[in-house]
């Protein structure tokens, strides 16, 4: 593990940048545990002061210190992303393994549903859901909802892997020695599929955090929980740009950009690393 990270740090510039960005994000998340302010309390500091040494990102119209508030926001956003990814991964792996291994009409039915979910515009459906669940919305519920919509692309990817694994001799050996289909999928195929699952997890986290930002801006997520999206929502509600409080918009945007770029570059770098051909090219082999 450490050797892999060391190699990537040495040979891949993208991984270096991702490493720095994500280290900054982790630092922010760790800092949230020592925050001097409670993110749920407002009017604890002076309102609308621009960034200074005392308030690194300035303060907002609700009397909160933006820097410390954002440490909670980035923590919650990332938590949401990881939760969504776990839920949608379980569905994607199940659908992918079953469709790929069983084939036949099960495969056809699952893939028709799968392809429909790929094509469907998710946002309008999520808006409808968010609108109806507005009063009971919380981060966990949002993660479940996003998880239910975030799997189809990856399920197809996993299925196509399983389709080729199925033709390998070890699968046949397992079948002839009487191993059940369930066990073959779990023991023989899943380990091969895991690297892709890992790479797509990062992509899914990105998608989920982005969706949360989108829904929050429409006022459809849990607005009392600090997240990157609700930070922008409250800034909009208080007319931050019109009032000239640019830092209220700039600070969450900056944190979001660092988080998104960090995760995306990590995804791109790992995706190439998983493929042995590009890995060799990278280290000049």
């Amino acid at each position, binding site marked *: 593990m450490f050797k892999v990270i060391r190699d990537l740090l040495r040979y891949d510039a993208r991984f270096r940048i991702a490493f720095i960005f994500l280290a900054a994000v982790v630092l922010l998340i760790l800092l949230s545990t020592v925050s001097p302010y409670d993110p749920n309390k407002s009017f604890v500091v002076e309102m609308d002061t621009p960034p200074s040494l005392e308030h690194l990102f300035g303060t907002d119209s609700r009397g909160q210190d933006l820097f410390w508030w954002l440490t909670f926001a980035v923590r919650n956003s990332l938590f949401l992303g990881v939760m969504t990814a776990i839920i949608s991964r379980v569905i994607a792996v199940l659908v992918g393994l079953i469709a790929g291994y069983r084939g036949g009409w099960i495969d056809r039915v699952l893939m028709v549903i799968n392809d429909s979910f790929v094509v*469907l515009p998710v946002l*309008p459906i999520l808006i409808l859901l968010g609108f109806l669940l507005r009063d009971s919305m919380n981060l966990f519920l949002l993660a479940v909802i996003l998880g239910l919509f975030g799997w189809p692309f990856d399920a197809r990817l996993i299925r196509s892997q399983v389709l080729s694994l199925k033709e390998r001799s070890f699968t046949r050996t397992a079948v002839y020695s009487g191993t059940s289909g369930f066990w073959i999928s779990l023991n023989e195929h899943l380990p091969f599929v895991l690297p892709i699952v890992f790479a797509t997890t990062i992509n899914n986290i990105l998608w989920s955090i982005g969706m949360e930002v989108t829904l929050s801006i429409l006022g459809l997520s849990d607005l009392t929980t600090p997240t990157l999206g609700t930070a922008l929502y409250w800034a909009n509600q208080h007319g931050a*740009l019109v009032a000239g409080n640019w830092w209220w918009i700039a600070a969450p945007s900056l944190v979001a950009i660092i988080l998104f770029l960090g995760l995306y570059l990590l995804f791109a770098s790992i995706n190439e690393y998983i493929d042995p051909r590009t890995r060799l090219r990278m280290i000049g082999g």
Partner: protein
Amino acid sequence: MQKFLIRYLIPRIIQFLTIIFIGITITFIIPRLAPTDPVEAQISMMVARGNTLDAQSVASMRTALTELYGLSGSPVQQYFAFWGRLLRGDLGPSLANFPTPVSEMIGQALPYTLALLVPALTISWILGNLFGSMSSYYPKNKALNVIEVLGQAVRPIPYYIVALVLLVVFAFFIPIFPFSGAYDIGTRPNWSLAFIWNFIQHAILPAATLVLVGFGGWFVGMKSLTSNIISEDYVVYAETAGLKKNKILTNYIMRNAMLPQLTGLALSIGTIFSGALIMEVVFGYPGIGMLTLVAVFRNDYSMIMGIAIYSIIGVATAVFIMDLLYPLFDPRVRYQ
């Protein structure tokens, strides 16, 4: 021709209908899973907002809402009634602008969204493919490498934040573009040259957002597709034959990598449409996205439902049309 019909067209039509069927069924099921009674919640919300509604219009609204949510009769009856109304194109009245039909308001907003989305999508697809294939054919070109890095840097950022940054930079700090709307306040849409110019000025930043975010994806996709093609025998042969480099690039390399990208375009229309919705909110652009925002803030349930249904049908149709156009680009489908 008959073979084409059976092997190509009919599966596409089935897929098209399945997407709509699944999408509409989801929008049918969702309100029934919601914990609260949507009709009463809606009415009490409207009353609480201080709307002066006489008893008769409350009653008619209750009937309309019960109809709209399709809550009369057994679930199976409800389901068929729901489809019946959809097929008649009747999505009920907007609750916030009672009694204007939802379809009419969506019809007014849709041209704005399409006027942004279609050109922006086309431009980002063409530019991404062009630069992507150039970058794998001329790997040492510095300018192309810079473009790649920039494209990749913007790609993962959510539409909303890219739009916000563009707005702040190019309308706030360097005020060269208008701040919001689709045209100046006070002018009325018409076909005069001055208005069209005004319209284009307003559309540049929103369109740029869509182009910038989309570009990186097409770029990477094309680059990885063409990286295998450039070492194919026929490309090497064309080079030995002394063909012009540009000709090899467009006719030999891009042509062969275009088809997966076209499929990719069809598959991502839904995602890009979603992005366009939220981008409109930043720029106050009067399309479907703004309609959604206003509907959410004014608790206009029927409008949100209508937007969801129209989006599903619209995106499915767009994908279907792309599928129908596909044989034009792929001779294998045409001649099989």
